[in-house]
């Protein structure tokens, strides 16, 4: 459908005899929060890896803003505005929180063949980085080495790194994973505040958060989308309840 | 360039290839399954040669020397692994490189101390020192034996890997090593045994090479490097890749050394051909490696990691 920011058609991916993605179709509208839910082993991470470019689909296509990005290398997708956060925080442990986010800013600001000036002294990098850290609630931790940050704080940092460049599409892989109820609430509030401004694909197990945030929900079972609709529609859907009971 | 010459050199290449295969088989499993860089593999080869030569010098029996070298290699491998390398299995590759580099230095010096710096001689029993005539060439029996042993090992390895439960674990280990522990396999024991078997194979290669190459300190490194090139070409973790890669490397290297200078002499000035020939020949397998990698970065038969 034109106007969609992301359109996935007929995606297939198998590992040997294991079919991880089976004729997956999905579309994401600009400005929406589109959640993906499904039982464990349904192929959510495999799907996100294909969206991000880490895995190459066997067949099918991924169209982002009208461009076919199925074969596009990872770094180009990032520069095209597709940002991805990881289920297990993938941050730079030797650096401080500020350095981490500044690095994210640096990634999209032209080339990095600058050999002389200290990156840490650059306002061009630090300014937006600080803003992002403040937005996620880490304003006290600019100079804390990540190795000394707790799990919840690292999840916040993870988010700061992907929102700082104002991506066109944000792929969030279980952002609430391992968070305490308080942290969870803070994250949900934060994501809610970004509604409408940033398009998001949200993979989550936390049903409360999903139903609170999502505009639409797609349900992934055995590598294929069995349903797609508003939260109310999904709640009422018999197939979904059959496949997903208790999760 | 006559047919008998080509046949002889091809057989020599084949023989070098199986020696490399014996080294590569053990090493590629260690690299692939245990993700462990063992640069000291060449030292195990060297120790196998020294064990064999010493036993032969004492007992004059080739068979005792052979059995002793293989057993000694296995034991040495397990001992080295338990004492020095066990803690490094889960560590950085850098630490592994460093440690096994230290081991190379240690073993090279050790052999110098025990057996002296001059080459150590190992002879052959009567039955193995002759030559056979076929297809117009006269070829040493012993080299045919090496080829025979190598092919036998390759065959046994193929059977073990394809047809037995142990082999299945090895193949599974290459792709999902981390899950084996969860499946109840005694991973520690398996790793120790694999390392020991790899060491025994290296020692076997060393003992087979001892009568025809010079047994001396540092003999392990040149063949180690050929082995590394082989594994890169064949694909890490793949026994099939090790076998085919070894044959390719053995034949290309041997034929290249003999034929390249001759070929060059057809086109170039004699003195240039004589100078450039050996130079290019010794670099040939590296160009081959670069070529393979440019097209297939993971080697010819990569083990797929699901």
């Amino acid at each position: 459908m034109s106007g969609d920011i992301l359109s996935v058609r007929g995606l297939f991916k198998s590992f040997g005899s294991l079919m991880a993605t089976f004729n997956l179709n999905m579309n994401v509208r600009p400005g929406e929060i589109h959640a993906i839910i499904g039982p464990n082993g349904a192929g959510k991470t495999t799907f996100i890896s294909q969206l991000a470019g880490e895995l190459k689909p066997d067949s099918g296509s991924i169209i982002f803003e009208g461009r076919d990005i199925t074969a596009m290398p990872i770094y180009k997708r990032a520069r095209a505005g597709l940002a991805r956060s990881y289920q297990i925080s993938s941050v730079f442990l030797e650096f401080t929180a500020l350095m981490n986010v500044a690095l994210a800013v640096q990634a999209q600001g032209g080339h990095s063949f600058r050999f002389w000036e200290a990156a840490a002294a650059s306002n061009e990098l630090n300014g937006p980085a600080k803003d992002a850290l403040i937005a996620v609630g880490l304003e006290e931790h600019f100079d804390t080495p990540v190795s000394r940050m707790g799990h919840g704080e690292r999840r916040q940092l993870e988010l700061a790194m992907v929102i700082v460049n104002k991506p066109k599409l944000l792929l969030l892989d279980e952002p609430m994973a391992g968070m305490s109820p308080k942290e969870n609430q803070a994250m949900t509030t934060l994501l809610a505040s970004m509604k409408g401004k940033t398009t998001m694909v949200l993979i989550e197990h936390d049903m409360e958060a999903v139903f609170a945030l999502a505009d639409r929900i797609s349900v992934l079972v055995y590598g294929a989308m069995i349903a797609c609709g508003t939260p109310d529609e999904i709640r009422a859907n018999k197939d979904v309840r059959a496949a997903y009971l208790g999760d | 360039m006559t047919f008998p010459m080509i046949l002889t050199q091809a057989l020599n290449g084949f023989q070098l290839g199986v020696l490399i295969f014996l080294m590569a088989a053990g090493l590629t499993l260690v690299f692939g399954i245990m993700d462990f860089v063992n640069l000291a593999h060449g030292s195990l080869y060297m120790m196998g040669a020294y064990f064999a030569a010493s036993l032969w010098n004492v007992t004059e029996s080739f068979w005792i020397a052979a059995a002793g070298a293989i057993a000694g290699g296995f034991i040495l491998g397990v001992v080295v692994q338990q004492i020095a390398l066990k803690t490094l299995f889960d560590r950085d590759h850098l630490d592994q490189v460093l440690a096994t580099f230290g081991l190379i230095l240690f073993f090279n010096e050790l052999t110098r101390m025990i057996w002296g710096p001059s080459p150590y001689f190992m002879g052959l029993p009567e039955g193995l020192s002759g030559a056979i005539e076929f297809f117009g060439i006269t070829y040493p029996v012993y080299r045919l034996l090496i080829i025979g042993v190598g092919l036998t090992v390759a065959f046994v390895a193929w059977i073990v890997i394809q047809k037995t439960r142990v082999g299945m674990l090895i193949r599974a280990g290459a792709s999902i090593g981390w899950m084996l522990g969860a499946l109840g396999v005694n991973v520690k024991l398996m790793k120790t045994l694999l390392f020991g078997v790899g060491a025994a194979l290296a020692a076997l290669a060393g003992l087979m090479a001892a009568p025809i190459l010079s047994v001396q300190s540092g003999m392990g490194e040149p063949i180690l490097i050929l082995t590394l090139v082989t594994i890169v070409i064949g694909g890490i973790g793949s026994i099939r890749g090790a076998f085919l890669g070894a044959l390719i490397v053995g034949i290309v290297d041997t034929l290249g050394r003999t034929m390249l200078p001759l070929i060059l002499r057809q086109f170039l000035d004699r003195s240039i051909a004589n100078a450039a020939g050996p130079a290019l020949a010794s670099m040939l397998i590296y160009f081959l490696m670069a070529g393979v990698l440019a097209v297939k970065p993971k080697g010819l038969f990569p083990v797929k990691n699901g």
Partner: protein
Amino acid sequence: MLAFAILIILSSVPVVSTLMGQPFYMTFFLRIMIYALAALSLNLILGYGGLVGFGHALYIGIGAYSVGILVSLGVTNGWIHLSAAVIFSLAVALFTGAISLRVTGIPFIMITLAFAQMFFFLAISLRQFGGDEGMTIPVLSNFGLVDLGRKSVFYYAVFSILLFYLYCSWRLINSRFGMVLRGSKGNDRRMNALGFPTFRYRLAAYSISAVMCSLAGVLLANLTGFASPDYMAWSLSGELIVMVVLGGIGTLMGPVVGAMALMLLEEALSLCTDHRMIVLGPMIVFTAIIAKRGIVGLFATSEGERR
């Protein structure tokens, strides 16, 4: 601080050795500094970049042979020697790097080793340039005002270069380029996900490192008056790695400390025994097993040392 102590010691060697009438010390410490330069260049990609390359001695060899071959052809201008070393090492680095850097981990180690061996055999087969015996270099590189023939001049020239390398390394590590390199070491996947095409930055770092190392080769040829395939031997590549790790991975002074420590150790051991590797080998194994942050790490006071 350790760094200043070492630099002060190094700067005073010529004075001390002349006073003591032992010119040997100057030569010895010159050698240490030259290896320190090579180790510094390796630290760039190994310590900060996380690339375990086992073929760095290759570039020392290229530097040395640039001098040797040019001198034998009648060219004695040091600046030409230097330019040749830079051009050749850059060419080789771009070629071998483009191939090696497409893989990581174990394959990378093996491929860098194999390429270094390739050139090692090439050097051995160059019979008109000494073959496996190496070639003597009868004349020193002529750098105009800086007369390498006078030991103390040579010494302070190398010392200045060492300081220059340290300063440049420091700037490089903290620059945007350096941040990309350091980030790729810890988490290459994330770097790509952020939008960095890490391959080209690694290739650049590898090339810079190679060129820096070849300069050490040029100096070594002038110190020893010799160029030999041994300068490219894999064992020397291994020793460079030992220097970097022993000194302290990813620290600025680490390589210098490591070079000094290793060479002093080797010298001390050879005074005691003919078989120093029997001791040194296990010591290296031991270092690999226990010493996490090297000698510099032992002296580091605060935890969040941002070097």
